[in-house]
């Protein structure tokens, strides 16, 4: 079987979704871990941090060639995942030209497993806003204020976060984005492992449980960032 055939059959297309999905999940781990450095500014830890830990971590992410290459891979991953999803959506919905009078609805399946395209579209819209808020000024236009920690010259991404999250509507949109992410992951995480061939029940239980924890923990941590800044706990 040729590689093109392997990845373009109905099963192969789902493998592409699963592999890119897994890659994006691994990115989320890095992203949420790194951004959680802003919580060091909380009363409990170091109120004088003022984003020092986060800015230094962000500087590290911007200064390494390996990570800059990974960044290109990330954009490619998102594009493949999104384009393939829309291709599959169009192809799959065309397989039933005449529909049912009485719809099955969510009998036997969850609403979010049937709404992955909708949730993904919301995430894509969120990403456009998110990238224009942070990635563009940080990496493209370079309009952020400079900041210096010892010998490290970098830009104050933390100050940008604090500025952006003063607007309650932006905060609400970020929280909505996190909720979409949670539902998207709740189906996507475990389905990825099924698509990659995990049929052993004990591993499926692990995938389901890890998926549940991941889909709650990661979006909650992300959502806490704009909320904490807006409420003045951070910044």
């Amino acid at each position: 079987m040729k590689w093109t055939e392997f990845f373009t059959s109905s099963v192969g297309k789902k493998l592409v979704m699963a592999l890119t999905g897994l890659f994006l999940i691994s990115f989320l781990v890095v992203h949420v871990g790194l951004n959680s450095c802003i919580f060091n500014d909380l009363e409990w830890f170091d109120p004088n941090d003022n984003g020092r830990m986060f800015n230094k971590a962000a500087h590290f992410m911007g200064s390494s060639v390996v990570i800059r290459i990974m960044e290109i891979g990330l954009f490619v991953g998102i594009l493949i995942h999104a384009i393939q999803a829309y291709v599959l959506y169009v192809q799959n919905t065309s397989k039933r030209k005449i529909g049912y009078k009485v719809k099955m609805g969510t009998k036997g399946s969850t609403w979010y497993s049937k709404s992955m395209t909708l949730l993904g579209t919301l995430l894509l819209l969120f990403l456009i806003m998110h990238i224009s808020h942070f990635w563009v000024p940080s990496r493209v236009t370079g309009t952020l204020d400079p900041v210096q920690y010892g010998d490290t010259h970098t830009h104050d991404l933390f100050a940008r976060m604090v500025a952006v999250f003063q607007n309650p509507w932006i905060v609400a949109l970020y929280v909505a984005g996190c909720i979409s992410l949670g539902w998207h992951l709740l189906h996507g995480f475990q389905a990825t492992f099924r698509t990659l061939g995990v049929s052993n029940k004990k591993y499926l239980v692990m995938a389901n449980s890890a998926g549940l924890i991941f889909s709650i923990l990661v979006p909650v941590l992300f959502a806490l960032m704009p909320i904490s800044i807006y409420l003045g706990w951070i910044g």
Partner: protein
Amino acid sequence: MEHYIMNLTLKVWKQKNPASNGKFETYQVKNISSEMSLLEMFDVLNEQLISEGNDPIAFDHDCREGICGACSMYVNGRPHGPWHGTTTCQLHMRAFKDGDTIVVEPWRANAFPVIKDLVVDRTAFDRIIQAGGYISVNTGNAVDGNTIPIEKEKADKAFAAAACIGCGACVAACKNSSALLFVAAKVSHLALLPQGDPERRTRVLSMVAQMDKEGFGSCTFTQACEAVCPKEISVTNISRLNAEYIAGGLGSDKDYGHQ
């Protein structure tokens, strides 16, 4: 359960032939016993239609004991009706109350075109089986069933997969009209057994290629198929098919003619 008699309103899809546009017809049926099966209720209605000189409703049925996979009605928004793990022929009228309206539709999928009324063409499934859902056996005496030892756990899983009767409810329920639960049941059934092992890699690739040619969609793991399957085939079989596909696809040089 106590026996009762009911009068019902039926809304049934009527379509003269594959080329014509169908529409829903409304029928009133009276004095239906709660002990009847849904198909027996249709028999009563058809007798009535024939005696009135009207065209009876065409529907598929054969064994009427839930093992052949011929019956195929989509009843009130669910393949095989409201009862879990039950074929249409085993759905009894005690599932309904006096005065209910029952909407009956054919399986809907481009790969299952309507032949007439509630009868759809499911030969796509036959062609998927022909593509590889078998084991090649040399001629000669039949091998004694117990010659090859099979571990109990695998035998049980293979048996559970082999329970698939190929009715097509999985396709009818799937939002993508995917046939993967059916194909996965057949692939798993044979891949788990030593007799099916020599051809397992090519089998899965050939069957998936044929499934794609027939115009079924892909699997999104909503698990609606498992919920409506009258034989309760598990979606873990689809995971197994995926594993077989990956192993087969990565190892094989043969061209399977995917479109």
